[in-house]
């Protein structure tokens, strides 16, 4: 075990997996000499050489498209998108090829690529450095999505993603890159995809969250101490989704508040609500509420605290569900 920041845990996972498997390579903008704008890939190029940690041209569709070809040549690429919103130029490759090529070969070729990127807001950054694009990825067949909320999970989920035979998108909460610090297992550490984590036990209401919204929900649970006993469920992986854990928790509490920082309309929280509306409707003692970003462009950063789900908005929702 070593104490590591979340971004250091990411870096550690890359070191361990590249050491373990010579077919793993890392590519992206500024991942080499600089070690990434957040230093997530620091030290990889020195250690594994410029052929396994590769600075690419500034062209996201090209990065993801060549990664598809690298898979075909036997590599297991880990692609960095420099920021959430800068992954959009690669959506076409993702939807039309990354999610479809294994199927297209009738299962004969695998595309075990990992796309990792810092995501989310709250970091006082200029425009388009704050997006939460998970819904686009989850809605893409053939693609899995994981979002860690802790340093240990950041390492474990990324490791699972790299080893997974399918393409996996890993969104890393950049807000907590250097604020979350935790003991992280040294060496190989796998957190399997599809297993949610009960971050806090409770009986009155389930707060469903992932990524940066998990510690927020924990703070909301603290704020409600004495008033309501909140269970905080950290989904960890959005696809595969741990429906059993979700349904078990809501069966127990009878109430759910889903927290997501992406814009509300057709976001991933809606999928959770839909699962509950289908499979837990008779367990529910109140409405399923969503606390989310709004259907507006992510705002200028002086306003971002109004946009992002806050402890106040979560506690307000919990109180409304309890009062229903």
């Amino acid at each position, binding site marked *: 075990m070593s104490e590591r920041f979340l971004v250091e845990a990411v870096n550690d996972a890359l070191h361990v997996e590249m050491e373990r498997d010579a077919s793993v390579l890392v590519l992206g903008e500024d991942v080499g000499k600089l070690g990434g704008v957040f230093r997530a890939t620091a030290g990889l190029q020195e250690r594994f050489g410029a052929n396994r940690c590769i600075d690419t*041209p500034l062209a996201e569709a*090209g990065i993801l*498209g060549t990664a598809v070809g690298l898979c075909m040549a036997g590599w297991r690429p880990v692609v960095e998108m420099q920021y959430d919103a800068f992954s959009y130029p690669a959506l076409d490759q993702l939807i039309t090829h990354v999610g479809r*090529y294994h199927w297209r070969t009738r*299962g004969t070729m695998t595309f075990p690529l990992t796309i990792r990127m810092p995501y989310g807001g709250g970091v006082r950054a200029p425009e388009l450095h704050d997006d939460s694009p998970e819904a686009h990825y989850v809605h893409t067949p053939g693609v899995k999505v994981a979002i860690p909320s802790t340093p240990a999970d950041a390492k474990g989920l990324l490791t699972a993603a790299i080893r997974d035979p399918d393409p996996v998108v890993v969104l890393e909460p950049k807000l907590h890159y250097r604020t979350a610090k935790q003991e992280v297992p040294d060496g190989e550490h796998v957190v399997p995809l599809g297993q949610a984590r009960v971050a806090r036990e409770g009986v009155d209401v389930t707060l469903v969250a992932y990524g940066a919204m998990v510690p927020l929900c924990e703070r909301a649970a603290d704020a409600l101490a004495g008033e309501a006993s909140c269970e905080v469920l950290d989904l960890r992986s959005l696809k595969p989704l741990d429906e059993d854990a979700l349904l078990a928790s809501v069966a127990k509490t009878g109430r759910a508040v889903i927290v997501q920082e992406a814009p509300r309309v057709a976001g991933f929280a809606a999928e959770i609500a839909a699962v509950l509306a289908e499979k837990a409707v008779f367990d529910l003692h109140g409405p399923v509420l969503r606390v989310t970003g709004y259907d507006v462009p992510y705002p200028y950063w002086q306003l971002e605290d109004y946009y992002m789900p806050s402890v106040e908005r979560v506690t307000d929702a919990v109180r409304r569900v309890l009062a229903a």
Partner: protein
Amino acid sequence: MSQVLPAERGLRRVIGDGASVPDGQVDGLSADDLLALYRGLVLLRTYDERSVVYHRQGRIGTYAIFWNHEAMQVGSAFALERRDWIFPSYRESAIGLLRGMPVATVLQWWRGHPAGWWNPLDWNVASICVPIGTHVPHAVGFAWGAKLRGEDRVALVMFGDGATSEGSVHEGMTFAGVTKAPVILFCNNNQWAISTPVSEQTAAPTLAEKAIGYGMPGVRVDGGDVLAVYEATREAVARARAGDGPTFIEAVTYRAAPHATADDPSLYIDEERVAEARENECVGRFARYLERAGLLSEDVAAEIKDDALARLREGIAEAEAEPPADPALVFDYAYASPPPGLADDLAELRRILGR
């Protein structure tokens, strides 16, 4: 003002016109090679012509016709070794036939049957790419990746004139140049992207000069001349194997058939140019070259044609004999390790379908 990289404006030709333009020769090609090229041309031509008929008969679905594109496909593929990969677009759907892929497989693709997706590792032919130009980065990544692994493999990627406008082609070519990937960027310039002429795709007078901006040579060849295509590709392959990186080949022809079976070119095309192209179509052109060289008798030509026709007859029969695909194939292979819900979905579907 100093000089930029050379890119060609003139079209390379080998085959003459039987009159004022004399026939050339390609060094190193034996009589057998020349006949093999001819067999390939006839096989593809036959495949294409029969497919149009099968479509009319309702035996295959919408089909992208490649009539008069055969020389580009056969000439370029012939310059490769079997270990090299081909990345086709829908326009080269049948290029796998040149590597022995069963006719039935390709027909199944156009029949919308899962048996139409092949295992690329069996033929070193990637899956057919439908979205324009998006396979260019795949080919570049593959070639680059093979090079990084120390393997001697070249990739040939085929796309149209219209594709050169797409960002993904630009990004793929950029990566090709920078990584010196052993890849041949083969552009079939048939001068039309459905109804849009190449003059509305770019203000550059030729596509070959696009290569300059990527730091790679741009070559221009008569796309109806199988020998010129072969020779240009062979040079590019040699460059690639020597570690000198990618080459862009613009092969120029004129689309002499509809874009696809659903298209009505009379709304936009120049019928005179079509008539000219049909007159000068690539299979006949090569046949006449071989005849002038005394390498193709009527008998051999007939045997080659019959053989191709037989393969098509067998292929369509085989394709039609394939049982309808099971609903499980909707779910199979979506994931190598599927999320749990898919099995439930299949079970529910089977319950509802009663099968």
